[in-house]
């Protein structure tokens, strides 16, 4: 045990490990905030779709040779988030169908571009890294850490300020709209927050596993807690603690960070499911 601690304190003396922990915790916090809303609005898969879009945008940025990829990835993802949530309401093309179309197209185009205009000698490793996050969380530069901190603070602030509106829009959009709540505005805010969270989270778990980070904590919390506030708080606590433990475990066991965290989330979900079933909470 003491050997474990000495190894941990050795790792913590490296700045890249500290950066990874800071950014990992912030990402986990932000991504769990909107999970409840997305699950309840039946948008669980929007995270998946958007992360593929972000992957496509990232490969475009790489091919163009942009040093700061955020400049292109963030706006493109936000735009797609707005479009996808909009189709969810108007339903000309069914929500899940449009998510599927956009996500596979972005994925295909992204991979195609990376192969046609390879920027490094090992394309498969690059792609694998982007999809599963591999070690990019451990290679953060100072600037990226600051960008993550700034975006996370903004995300949390926006969520707190609009918390009650987000609740109202999630629970009953028609009622909210009929009583004069600007539902379109709040749907837009939700879309933008999701896009920002996804772009941030690509660093941590890669684009294939982001959905897990967004919906697992919410689903676990919903098994046991009964009010919106307690579910939201529980899912952030769960998300942050699994991310922390996951990063430590990944460093100690030398496993890839993203999949380790997601596997942890899955275990927590199973545990909460069992506890919830034993407590007799009506299933969600």
């Amino acid at each position: 045990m003491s050997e474990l601690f000495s190894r941990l304190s050795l790792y913590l003396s490296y700045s890249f490990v500290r950066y990874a922990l800071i950014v990992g915790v912030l990402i986990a916090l932000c991504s769990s905030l909107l999970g409840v809303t997305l699950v309840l609005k039946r948008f669980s898969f929007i995270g998946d779709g958007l992360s593929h879009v972000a992957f496509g945008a990232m490969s475009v940025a790489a091919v163009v040779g942009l040093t700061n990829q955020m400049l292109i990835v963030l706006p493109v993802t936000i735009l797609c988030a707005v479009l996808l949530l909009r189709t969810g309401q108007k339903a000309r093309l069914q929500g899940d169908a449009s998510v599927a179309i956009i996500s596979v197209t972005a994925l295909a185009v992204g991979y195609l571009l990376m192969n046609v205009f390879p920027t490094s000698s090992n394309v498969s490793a690059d792609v694998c890294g982007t999809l599963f996050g591999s070690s990019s969380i451990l290679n953060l530069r100072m600037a990226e850490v600051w960008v993550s901190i700034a975006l996370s603070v903004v995300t949390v602030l926006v969520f707190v300020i609009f918390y009650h509106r987000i609740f109202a829009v999630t629970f009953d959009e028609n009622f909210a709209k009929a009583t004069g709540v600007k539902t379109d505005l709040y749907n837009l805010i939700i879309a933008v927050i999701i896009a920002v969270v996804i772009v941030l989270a690509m660093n941590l778990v890669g684009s294939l596993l982001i959905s897990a980070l967004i919906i697992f904590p919410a689903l676990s919390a919903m098994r046991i807690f009964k009010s919106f506030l307690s579910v939201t708080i529980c899912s952030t606590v769960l998300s942050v603690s699994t991310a922390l433990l996951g990063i430590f475990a990944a460093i100690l066991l030398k496993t890839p960070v993203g999949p380790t965290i997601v596997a942890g989330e899955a275990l927590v979900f199973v545990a909460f499911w069992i506890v919830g079933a034993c407590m007799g909470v009506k299933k969600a």
Partner: protein
Amino acid sequence: MTQIKVQDVSLGYETGAIVSHLSFEVKEGDYLAIVGENGSGKSTLMKTLLGLLKPLAGEIVFGDSLRKNEIGYLPQQTVVQRDFPASVSEVVISGCLSNGKFHPFYNKADKALAEANMKRMGITALKDRSYRELSGGQQQRVLLARALCATEKILLLDEPVSGLDPKVTMEMYDLIKQLNDEGVTIIMISHDISAAVRYADHILHLGEKMFFGEVSDYKKSDFGKLFLTEGGEK
């Protein structure tokens, strides 16, 4: 005093009008029941009154005392709500968001209003319970309390008793009548014509032939007789 005046309105979607040349008005303290078969445009009319849809033609005028978003609304339950993790008090107080100015959090007045309306609906004891664990009738009371937080003036009820058992249905109708007696204008959509004529004072019957007027006239009209005998009431 007239709260809502509907003048020669056509309702529907881009694909075509469902209801044409509809005119009626709602005065303060009225209890209007909107009846008609499925597809006759009841829900479309409700959405238009709530401002969720625009009328295709004609005009809806709101009285001086009524701002457009001062209408309380009891919607039909959605799938989302059935497993929504929210406590009763969270749902009720969300009705207070309509009071115009933007505050990130609820103030004391909002909380007091929510408490008062929970008491009025007899659900104070349930306030920390989860909405999804309640019975159908209890859920309707929660949503009524929320609607009352949004307004004291006028309530639109969309099939308020659908899915409720007979005893709870009676309680629900009595509760709505009690609110009406306290001065809240009620507009209720219903399948149940016999209940509509028992509780409401005005009837709007949508369909190929339309009727709008007081319940006594509706009962006397050939049109009303036809539907009421079918409904088993004289």
